């Protein structure tokens, strides 16, 4: 059926990419630190991103703990006024304690956006899988890939420095003029943090550029554009946005740094500048980047659903074009972050355009669910994550509608409703897909299996914890709770406490997953090359793949989702039976 060579076709064996070099520990460190192998870089990025995810997650839990009780001044037994309900007691006065709360939500936002979600999937799974899925030996510019890794590390270092140096209290959006002239005692920190984001932008640009060229130039023989797995299509759309949008945030942050240091007056209204211009610049990047965050998640979901349901993706081309459509329209809707700051005409236009971006997103969800029809659906951790993704992302997408509608957005803007909405999209969408994808490709990356029941338990805990945390916040938002509040009026306390309890369940679920991964590395069973019966090219490689991915250059003879016609490689055909072949001459559809 297939002429793609598999590792067992021939005798010689070269080591996997994880085989340590001769010369002991230091040789291994040097090998990893100077590697241009996309797989090693992908693994290093994964470790970095997951560590930072943990830091950002802990900051989020601390923020939730602060919100357990509102801050109140009460009289104690001696008749003195004392402040109660503040968890952050790091400052000398209640107002300084508030500053610490502000720093923690900024840490959470900045780390999660700039260091975790934006580079998250492309730099980790994208780096590891893109060449494998294309049947290539590496990305187009391996040394550039190593450079972007070190740029990423430098950016992370700057961010961490600013955090150690008491942190930034501007929120991750750095809105001027607060960030440029008012932020509390953070003269150097705002500069450090924005420099970090500026540097990370370069890493993002170089990765995107590398991926675009790789996809154009390094597809294996026989692979046309529409034979690429949808994950690759998602990466392609993502990379286009990264390359085209990131320079604008670069110049914006640069101007903000000038503003902060020299007070040049470009954004500061006190000197004739325009703070709304900052918002336009900022969101011209940061809105397309929302799609940098979600498109890779969509790509992972497409892969997981197709493999575990053993069905060709319904409407492959529709999904591929929807990715590009989202990337394109995504550039035109940044203004919907500023409905409460712009004139009527601009708001109206941006509201209309925003509804356009809802359509390709909805089309994708319909296609994924239609893919399940008449499949052979396995019930395992990656599939459970894929279903969780569909559930949470649908809520995230649908709650975007009242935010795109002008009349309702004027109420919901900057409230907890928005907070809940973007967590459903960013975390329920991207992070859930990312963790699901890690489970899905874990055997391929590490050569080890994880414990299935622990993975399922973790997923269910995350699902419950997530919904308890964030569904509650929809009600908080509609009832009038603004975001970025360290304290609140008494009416909101019950809902806040439910949300905090949920966040603890969510955090515990994450630690279950982490423990499962660590256990698998130490004591996991050896993974077969193709545990799920996948058909795309990464499943033809060894687990873990050899140094140069494939022993021969593969030649593609079937599509990535021909589950109805092709036996998966390295698998017992009896485990993956095929339906009756179509009569000769009959076409699909």
């Amino acid at each position, binding site marked *: 059926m297939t002429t793609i060579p598999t590792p067992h076709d021939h005798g010689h064996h070269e080591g996997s990419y994880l085989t340590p070099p001769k010369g002991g520990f230091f040789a291994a460190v040097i090998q990893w630190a100077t590697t241009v192998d996309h797989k090693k870089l992908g693994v290093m990025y994964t470790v970095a991103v997951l560590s930072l995810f943990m830091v950002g997650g802990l900051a989020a839990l601390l923020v939730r703990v602060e919100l357990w009780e509102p801050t109140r001044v009460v009289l104690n037994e001696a008749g003195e006024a004392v402040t109660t309900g503040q968890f952050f007691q790091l400052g000398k006065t209640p107002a300084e304690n508030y500053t610490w709360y502000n720093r923690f939500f900024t840490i959470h936002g900045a780390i999660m956006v700039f260091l975790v979600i934006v580079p998250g999937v492309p730099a980790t799974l994208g780096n590891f899988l893109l060449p494998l899925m294309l049947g*290539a*030996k*590496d990305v*187009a*510019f*391996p040394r*550039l890939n190593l450079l972007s890794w070190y740029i990423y590390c430098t950016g992370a270092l700057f961010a961490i420095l600013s955090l150690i140096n008491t942190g930034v209290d501007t929120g991750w959006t750095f809105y001027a003029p607060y960030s440029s002239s008012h932020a509390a005692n953070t003269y150097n920190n705002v500069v450090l943090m924005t420099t970090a984001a500026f540097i990370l932008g370069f890493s993002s*640009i170089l990765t995107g*550029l*590398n991926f*675009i*060229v790789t996809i*154009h*130039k*390094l597809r294996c023989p026989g692979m046309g554009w529409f034979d690429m797995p949808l994950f690759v299509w998602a990466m392609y759309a993502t990379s286009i946005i990264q*390359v*085209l*949008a*990131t*320079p*604008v945030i*670069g*110049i*914006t942050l*640069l*101007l903000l740094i*000038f*503003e902060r240091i*020299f*007070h*040049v*007056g*470009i954004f500061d209204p006190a*000197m*004739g*500048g*325009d703070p709304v*211009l900052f918002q336009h*610049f900022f969101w011209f990047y940061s809105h397309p980047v929302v799609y940098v965050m979600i498109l890779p998640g969509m790509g992972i979901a497409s892969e997981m659903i197709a493999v575990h349901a053993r069905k060709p993706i319904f409407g492959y081309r529709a999904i591929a074009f929807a990715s590009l459509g989202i990337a394109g329209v995504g550039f035109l809707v940044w203004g919907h972050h500023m409905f409460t700051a712009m004139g009527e005409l601009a708001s109206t236009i941006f509201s209309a355009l925003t509804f356009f971006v809802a359509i390709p997103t909805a089309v994708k969800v319909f296609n994924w669910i239609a893919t399940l029809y008449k499949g052979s659906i396995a019930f395992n951790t990656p599939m459970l994550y894929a279903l969780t993704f569909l559930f949470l992302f649908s809520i995230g997408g649908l709650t975007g509608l009242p935010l795109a509608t002008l009349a309702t957005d004027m109420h919901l803007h900057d409230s907890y409703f928005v907070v809940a909405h973007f967590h459903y999209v960013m975390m329920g969408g991207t992070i859930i897909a990312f963790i699901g994808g890690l489970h899905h490709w874990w055997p391929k990356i590490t050569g080890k299996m994880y414990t299935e029941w622990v993975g399922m338990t973790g997923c269910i805990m995350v699902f419950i914890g997530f919904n308890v945390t964030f569904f509650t916040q929809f009600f908080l938002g509609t009832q009038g709770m603004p975001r970025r509040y360290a304290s609140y009026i008494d009416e909101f306390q019950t809902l806040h406490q439910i949300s905090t309890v949920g966040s603890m369940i969510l955090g515990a679920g994450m630690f279950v997953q982490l423990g499962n991964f660590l256990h698998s590395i130490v004591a996991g069973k050896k993974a077969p090359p193709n545990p799920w019966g996948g058909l795309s090219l990464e499943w033809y490689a060894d687990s873990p793949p050899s140094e140069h991915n494939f022993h021969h250059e593969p030649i593609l003879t079937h599509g990535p989702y021909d589950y109805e016609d092709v036996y998966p490689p390295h698998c017992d055909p009896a485990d993956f039976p095929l339906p009756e072949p179509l009569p000769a001459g009959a076409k699909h559809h």
Partner: protein
Amino acid sequence: MTTIDTHSKRQPGWKRYAFANHFRNAEDEFDACKLGFWLFLATEILLFAGLFCAYAMYRVKFPEAFAAGSHHLDIRWGGLNTLVLLVSSFTVAMSIRCAQLDNQKWLRINLVITILCAFMFFFIKLTFEYIPKWSHGIRPGVLYSNPFAGHPQEPVWWSVYYGATGIHALHVLIGASLLLWCLYRSLRYKAYGPTHYTMLENSGLYWHLVDVIWIFLFPLLYLIH
């Protein structure tokens, strides 16, 4: 192209060059590098697009401040610098042409002229524009201390001026460093010839970009009064 003699040291560098082994052949590698570099140039243009947007916004908002500020710029120095950059763009294109014709001598001469032009541009900018203005207190934002501002918002114009030309000057330096590196490799290895001149061509493209951006900056800054 795949029959490269990688052993003989006497061969010039461009003949010894072997393509990276994850490409199928040298043409693929050349195309990939060029595509990658064009994408990079696109990001550079977008970076400056942000500056041009800021320029447009504030020019609409404070037209008098822009006219007053632009009045301080000497069109002769700006024009001379434009000429310098145009000449350098021509010579860098010629050096690529020489590489394609394997004319190593003129390749180097052209590169040297280009690099000299780059430093001349920088020298003129610094000596005749930045330093005198700065010492007269004509500075961006709150640093502005010239007592004869033509308009209350003139410091904003100077912020835009210093921001745009400063970032452009940084690009001139980066481009000059790239070309210096090419010159070094040409002198040392004869690295560029008819079948391999990727680095030289991409550095040349970068230099053209620097030139094109100046072509936009010059009228926007010098010719508006």
